[in-house]
Structures are given as C-alpha cells and as structure tokens.
C-alpha cells in the first residue's frame, strides 16, 4: 500500500484529522477497525472503461486507497505474434483496441515497412491519413458517450454512439468492415474509395457538427457537468514527465505534444494540424480539449477528402507475403491515437517471423500509475467520471 498518502498533486487536502491516522506520511489502514470498507469497482460495472477493475478502500464515500487490476481479457497478442508470419500478425493487432483499431493497423504496417525499407505510394498515404482521422472521430464520439454516461446523462451517450454508427457505415463503405477494418496492409491500402464516398462523408461531417453543437449546449455548458468535472483529477505539468502522460491528458496541462505535429507521419506534414492545449489540467479541461480536437478532426477529414489524388498506386511492390523475410533490426513507430502516443516496437531477427512485437498503449500509465494516484481523496461517485476523463482502454494494457 504505497500510495496511501494524501494526493500531493491535486492541491486538495482532505480532512485527515480523524481518519485515517497518518504515520510517517502514510495512512494507517486497518480494515478490522471497521472504519474503512473495501469495495471493488468492476470488472462488471457500467462506470468502468472496459474489462478492468479498481480495488478501493473507502472511508465514508471518500477513496483513501486504490489499485488497478487487469488481466480479464489477456489474449497474449505479443506471444502469438512471435509464432506467426508477418502477414499473419496483421489481422491480430486491430483487436488490441476496439474503439480505435486503425492506429494499431497503421503502426504495425509502418513498422514492417520501416524494417523492410518499403516506401508506400502517395495515394495510399492519403487514404491512410483519411482512415486514421476518421477512426479518431469514431473513438471520440464513443468517449463523449462514456463521459456523459458516467455523470448520469445517458441520452447524450445515445446520440453520440448513434452518430458513431453512421461513421462505422462509412468505414464499411471504405473498407468492408465496421469495427475491424484491416485496411492498411503492409505496403499500402487494400482498396480505393467507392463511388459517392466523398459526398457521403461530407454530408456526415455536417451532421456530426450539428450534433456536436447539441453536445456543447447540453454537456459542456451544463452547470452540473462543470460542477462535477472542474477540479476533478488534476494533472499537473510536473506529472507529465514523471508518469509518461501523453495525448489530451498531457496537452490539457499545457504540454505541446501531438505526434501529428511533432513527428508527422503519413500525410500530416502537408495538413494544417493545430496544437490544441489548455493550462488547467482537470477533467473538464480534458473534455473541452477533446471537443475542440473533434472539430479539428472534422476539418482535417474535409481537407483530406479534397486532396486525395484521383489516380495513383494503392500498394507498393511487395515480395511474396507468405515467405516474407525482413532483415534483422529494430524499430519503433508511433501515431497519435485519441488517447495519445500509441506505438509499436518491433524486433526482427531475419526470419519470417518477428522476434518481438510490443504494443505501447497510452492507457498503460493512465489507467494504472496515474489513476491510482488521482483516485485518492476523491468521492466514490466521481471515480467513473475520472476513469473516463483519462480515456483508458484496458486491452492496451494487457496486449
């Protein structure tokens, strides 16, 4: 029980005059004293982001100790990939994150291309950019649903998840799959845009903007939401380096780190991506930041649709993928998912199978180190809102 002390970052000092007693800066928690209760939030709980659970010790309704437990959906992707040929790894990786599988597809394909020295054609790069940006919108729409649901506003969740379904329709048109797309194969993309796709997408952008206006009116401008989220789960700028915090969680503290800008991949260097930051660092600032990021993603999709070349190759010339051997080496490829830095570290030993593939998900620190730190001293009823505001995705932790 190492994190029993008061929350040193939030600046909020709970009244510790009675419970728990402090000894050497650590709280003395004796469950037999009947002053504390141990409860579990999850793994089956509507306020949990996926299959993970948080073991809590509470005093009244205030959390004094928290510990994250994972392992409910461990499918050993990384071990499986060590026994499979490169191309057989490809359909596995999208399962690592259900709401946003495309970042995994891109990273693993780009890692293989980087090790094998393959250059992806221009048009395929644009189609990859479109696919990645659309997946960011779909993921954010699901996140709004979770954040609103965690505060008891189920209707907003219904709207946004309903709208996400229209984006999934668009994915189906583009790739043939709704949830898992398996579109960005090593060397390029699988197919071109179907007829009428651009008009459909532009129409959906207009409808999504209208919905986002409703979300702003009912959610971000809502006094109850502000009173619940403002001051909750404050991440300070010092925590960003110490805990490896990335993505909107880091940008909400003022850290200018967006991989689309800092280390541009696919065609982001040719697009006008703006760094959106805030300086507050609480759950409300993160929500606002994600809302602005959604608008930016819609702008980007619109810009990409205008710039995709009509003609061009969809795939680079590839060797026989069944017997594809990649020269020895190691690489790390990363991309900006909605949760932050998402990367794949791949080591090749010159055979037809990877020696090691490691998926670095943003939730790895957000859901364990950061959540355990921030959960202390908050009310039990705010825990679900805190978890969703960190935007955690448990499969990224277990891989």
């Amino acid at each position, binding site marked *: 029980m190492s994190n029993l002390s008061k929350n040193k970052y939030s600046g909020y000092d709970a009244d510790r005059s009675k419970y728990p007693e402090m000894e050497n800066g650590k709280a003395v928690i004796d469950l037999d004293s009947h002053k504390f209760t141990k409860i579990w939030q999850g793994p089956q709980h509507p306020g949990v982001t996926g299959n993970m659970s948080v073991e809590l010790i509470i005093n009244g309704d205030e959390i004094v100790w928290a510990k994250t437990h*994972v392992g409910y959906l461990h499918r050993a992707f990384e*071990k499986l990939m060590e026994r499979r*040929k490169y191309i057989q790894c490809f359909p596995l990786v999208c399962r690592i994150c259900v709401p946003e599988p495309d970042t995994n597809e891109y990273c693993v394909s780009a890692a293989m291309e980087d090790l094998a020295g393959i250059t992806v054609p221009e048009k395929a790069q644009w189609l990859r950019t479109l696919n990645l940006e659309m997946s960011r919108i779909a993921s954010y729409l699901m996140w709004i649903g979770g954040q609103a649901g965690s505060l008891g506003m189920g209707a907003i969740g219904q709207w946004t998840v309903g709208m996400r379904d229209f984006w999934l329709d668009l994915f189906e048109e583009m790739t043939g799959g709704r949830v898992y797309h398996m579109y960005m194969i090593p060397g390029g993309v699988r197919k071109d845009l179907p007829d009428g796709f651009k008009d459909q997408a532009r129409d959906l952008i207009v409808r999504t903007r209208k919905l986002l206006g409703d979300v702003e009116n009912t959610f971000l401008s809502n006094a109850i939401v502000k009173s619940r989220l403002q001051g909750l789960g404050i991440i300070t700028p010092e925590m960003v380096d110490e805990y490896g915090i990335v993505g909107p969680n880091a940008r909400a503290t003022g850290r200018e780190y967006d991989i689309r800008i800092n280390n541009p991949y696919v065609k982001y260097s040719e697009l006008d991506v703006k760094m959106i930051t805030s300086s507050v660092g609480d759950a409300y600032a993160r929500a606002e930041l994600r809302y602005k990021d959604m608008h930016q993603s819609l702008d980007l999709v619109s810009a990409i649709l205008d710039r995709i070349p009509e003609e061009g190759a969809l795939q680079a010339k590839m060797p026989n993928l069944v017997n594809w051997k990649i020269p020895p080496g190691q690489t790390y490829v990363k991309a900006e998912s909605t949760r932050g830095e998402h990367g794949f570290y791949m080591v090749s030993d010159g055979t037809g199978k990877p020696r090691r593939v490691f998926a670095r998900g943003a939730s790895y620190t957000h859901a364990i180190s950061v959540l355990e730190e921030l959960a202390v001293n908050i009310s039990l009823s705010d825990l679900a809102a805190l978890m969703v505001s960190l935007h955690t995705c448990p499969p990224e932790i*277990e891989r």
Partner: protein
Amino acid sequence: MEQLIKKLKGMVHLRAYRKQRDDLHFIMVDKPQLEMILAHLKNNEGFTHLAFLQAVDLIEDGKFQLTYMLYNYSTSVNLGVNVLIDRDDAEMNSIHKLWAHGWQYQRELHELYGIDFPGSPRVEESFVLEGWEEMPPMRRDFDTLEYSDKTFYQRPGRSTNDPAEYMKEKMYKNYPPSPGIRRDDE
C-alpha cells in the same frame, strides 16, 4: 544528434550505435553504466519522456535485451537505449526513482520474463497472471502446447486435425500443392 553521440562516447563505452530514422536512434551500453546514462539523458539532455521499457529474449545468446525508449520534446527525437543482461541470472537496476511509472514495466518484466528488479516497488505483485507457477510465459522456451495439454482436457468425442493437411484433403485434393500459410511452431 551526432554531437550527443560523440559526447556519450566520451562518457561511456558505447557498444553500438544505429540510426534507424532521422527521429529514431538506438545505442547499446553496458549494464553497470545504464543507470548513469539514463539519468544523464533525462536530467541534462532533455530526454524526459520514458515511452516504454521492454525486453527481447535472445535465447541463442543466453541474453535478454532491454530497451528503454526515451523521447526529447524539444528536438522530437526518440532514443532507444539497449542493454544486454544474462538470461540465467536476469537482474537489473530499478529506474523507479527516475520515472515514477517505471515500476509498472518492471513488474510486467518480472512476471512475464522473470527479470528481477531489486528495490522496485510492487515488483512481486501479479500483473495479468494471478497464481502463475510455471516458467515466465514470454520466455521463448516456454512450451505453450505442453502447458495447454497439461492444464486443459479435450472434450470427449472430438478429434483434432492438422489444419493444413485436413484442408488439403477436403478441399484442394484436385489442385497442385501450393506453398500455403502455415504456423510451423518451433
């Protein structure tokens, strides 16, 4: 980056250096110097972000290769620091004092590879495998088939076929043999 590498060569014995891309470099250092070089890179060279710490099992050489992936926000460069440790006596210094989230990766490596990090907080706690008593499963000599045969039982009345042979017999009998995709486990 060249200047930094030159500087590091003056400080420690760099066993290897490789530039993978403009924004990704790898260096390999000796085990005793690792903690010092990580502290230097973090405190003086601006590599303040630890993206991950992971291991690769080099079973042929009897080594584990650890990779500490650092990132510099001002130059937008990733630097992977590699270090080789003995596979039989797998032990490494803990970095939890440099990065507060380092303990998580060390707990994972302890459970999945059997690498010990003395002094690392909660390193003995289970991560994804509760009550695991076998060999650490991410080691390459862990036999997954033997483990599943030992742990689970076949449902009565079911038979097992080799997928490649079975499909050949059932579907492709009249066609010439093709290379096919097959997972020939080592």
